[in-house]
């Protein structure tokens, strides 16, 4: 069972690499959105420092949103989703495998790109650790909740816009705790409480999201 699971993760990673450009596009979009903010609010370092963590988080959230609609769509179109549903593995674990692959190709690269953007945005030096740690905990939640939205809208016309409408409100807690972790660290406070909240949400999402997404996928399959 765990062998099948790992093979599924590897298959999705391979597909992402061969089809090319997926992660690179998200990162480019991420950098692009962040670089709009200095143009919008002005280049004063104090202003940028004040909004740095929030901007980076919002941009990361948008990049994840953009990447969600292909999560199950390609597999539905070429019929491999039907094959995946026939695996001896429960569909919820198939979803989990695909979510892990999604995180490895979007959330993780975004987290790795975040320090660079921190430099561009004059992020306070004390906040880097908190920002990266919060993103490591937070971006998997974005992928998990996103999987529910992607599964619900997989067979739907113009699913992309609908997907963002459904998923964005559910992302708000992650944004709040993620940003306030970095801000607490920047002001020299402990940010462990924020980390604990993010961990709690992640633990809940790991259990609930694959099940809910699997229910939703079954709708697209009949």
């Amino acid at each position, binding site marked *: 069972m765990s062998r099948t699971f790992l093979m599924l993760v590897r298959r999705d990673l391979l597909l992402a690499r061969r089809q090319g450009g997926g992660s690179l596009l998200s990162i480019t979009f991420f950098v692009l959105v962040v670089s709009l903010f200095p143009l919008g609010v002005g280049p004063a370092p104090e202003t940028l420092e004040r909004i740095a963590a929030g901007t980076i988080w919002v941009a990361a959230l948008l990049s994840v949103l953009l990447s969600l609609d292909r999560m199950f769509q390609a597999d539905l179109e070429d019929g491999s989703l039907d094959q995946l549903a026939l695996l001896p593995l429960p569909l919820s674990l198939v979803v989990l495998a695909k979510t892990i692959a999604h995180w490895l190709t979007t959330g993780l690269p975004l987290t790795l790109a975040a320090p660079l953007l921190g430099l561009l945005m004059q992020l306070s030096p004390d906040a880097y650790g908190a920002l990266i740690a919060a993103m490591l905990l937070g971006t998997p939640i974005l992928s998990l909740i996103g999987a*529910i939205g992607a599964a*619900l*809208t997989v067979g*739907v*016309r*113009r*699913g992309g816009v*609908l997907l963002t*409408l*459904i998923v*964005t*409100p*559910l992302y*708000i*807690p992650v944004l*709040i*705790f993620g940003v*306030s972790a970095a*801000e607490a660290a920047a002001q020299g406070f402990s940010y462990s409480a924020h980390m604990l*909240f993010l961990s709690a*949400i992640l633990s*809940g999402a790991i259990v*609930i999201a694959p099940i*809910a997404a699997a*229910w*939703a996928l079954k*709708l697209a399959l009949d």
Partner: protein
Amino acid sequence: MHRFANPTRFLRLAAAVLPFSAAVAALCLGAGVVWGLFFAPPDYQQGDTVRIMFIHVPAAMMAMGVYAGMAISSAIALIWRHAVADLIAKASAPIGATFCFICLVTGSLWGKPMWGTWWVWDARLTSMLIMLFIYLGYMALWQAFDDQTKAARAAAILALVGAINLPVIKFSVEWWNTLHQPASLITMSGPKIHESLLWPLLLMIVGFGAYYLTVLIYRVRAEIHMRRTRMLRLAQADRHAAMQAAE
């Protein structure tokens, strides 16, 4: 509960309940509005603006209550494939969204004289706004599917995911608010409410509840009739096609 999965039985129950709920809604809303707007004394701090409360508070309570009802009927629909529960959830969403919108608009109108601005990122205002977005997403998901049974199940899953998420959102927004906003704004939770304002408020709350029930019954009834009409039309078209083939 399963007795009412049969739409005909549900319609019979609805027809019996409707006159009562409509009468209670009309009486309570009428009495509450007159009492609240003309006879209740103005607040010693807020003056006449306190009367916005008689619309604002019941609307906020109903916005949350309707979502809870929607989530419960979605769960019933998912677990027991209860046909009428789906319709109740579907019919509730626009009503709940409207209550949510009324709550936001009256809150904004109330905020202008009290806080000096139309909008503040107060914890309660913010979580109401997010709730409105969740309602809108739910309604959009219903619209997106051609097949009504699929739409019903997808929407039910979303309603339940939203129900799990709403307390987390509410909590996180409150946490965020206490970090970002000075507490001076939140003067509303100050003195306990006086009896002279409490009675009209209670009347309005009961009135809003009864109004919801009345509109819900109308909407579910319309939905059932619409589906029946569609089935009849499809059957007629089938017969027509069969006759033409025979000729």
